[in-house]
């Protein structure tokens, strides 16, 4: 699902929605205690990863459409689609798109570098998700702007089991 963009500070204040979701759906989650970094604050991980992507600047929650399924039955391969509103001209284009995770052991999933020759700022891939969590896409433009979009995904089978 794509969350409409509010203020960037909403990152810390979104758990109520997830609470509603998990209240209504039977969710099987594999315990994560044995995972590296499991003890770390998860909201902190996302905030830190966004901050690394922006060099500490606060991104504007606008212009980034991040699509993931609301419910991923299999965390091993989840389709991700990110599109940024950009004219993609020589002067004003998206240079980087960084995909970051709230609960994966590796906070940065991928970083894409593009330029005006892309025509559109749009990338599709398949990601692994270790747990039900929030994913963010941070875009950096050639004009020095940072934009962010987020999506929340409920994961039924974690990619952190030993299956593959």
């Amino acid at each position, binding site marked *: 699902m794509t969350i409409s963009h509010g203020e960037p500070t909403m990152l810390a204040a979104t758990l109520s929605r997830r609470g509603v979701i998990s209240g209504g759906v039977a969710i099987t989650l594999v315990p994560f205690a044995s*995972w*590296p970094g499991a003890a770390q604050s998860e909201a902190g991980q996302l905030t830190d990863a966004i901050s690394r992507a922006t060099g500490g600047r606060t991104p504007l929650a606008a212009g980034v459409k991040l699509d993931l399924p609301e419910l991923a039955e299999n965390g*091993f*391969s*989840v389709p991700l689609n990110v599109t940024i509103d950009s004219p993609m001209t020589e002067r004003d284009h998206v240079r980087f798109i960084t*995909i970051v*995770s709230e609960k*994966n*052991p*590796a906070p*940065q*999933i*991928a*970083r*894409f*570098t*593009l*330029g005006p*020759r*892309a*025509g*559109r700022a*749009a*990338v*599709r*891939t*398949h*990601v*692994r998700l270790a747990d039900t969590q929030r994913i963010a896409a941070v875009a950096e433009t050639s004009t020095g702007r940072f934009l962010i979009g987020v999506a929340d995904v409920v994961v039924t089978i974690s*990619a*952190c089991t*030993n299956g*593959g």
Partner: protein
Amino acid sequence: MALTSARIVTPATARMGEIIEIKTLARHPMETGYRRDDRGRQIARDIIGTFRVTYNAVEIFQADLSQGIAANPFIAFTTVAMETGDIIATWTDLAGREISAKARITIT
């Protein structure tokens, strides 16, 4: 694991200035480094770390990947069709091994 197969798919023809989607897929386990084998030993991380695409030798797209990308990484992106020529994708794993795949596009 060796990079044994990789594919790139583009339209065979395009009009000058048309935005086309390029789809790529490599065969690779993207081993996370978190799993253990039957005897409890950690399986070493083995992933494709970088992915680059050129269009007539000009780089048009690049990606830094982590173990958060699913096995057999699929990446799709767009480019503006500029001239007849080759679009070449290259995948490189953490040990520096590479594989490339090429697609030919003809401007009509």
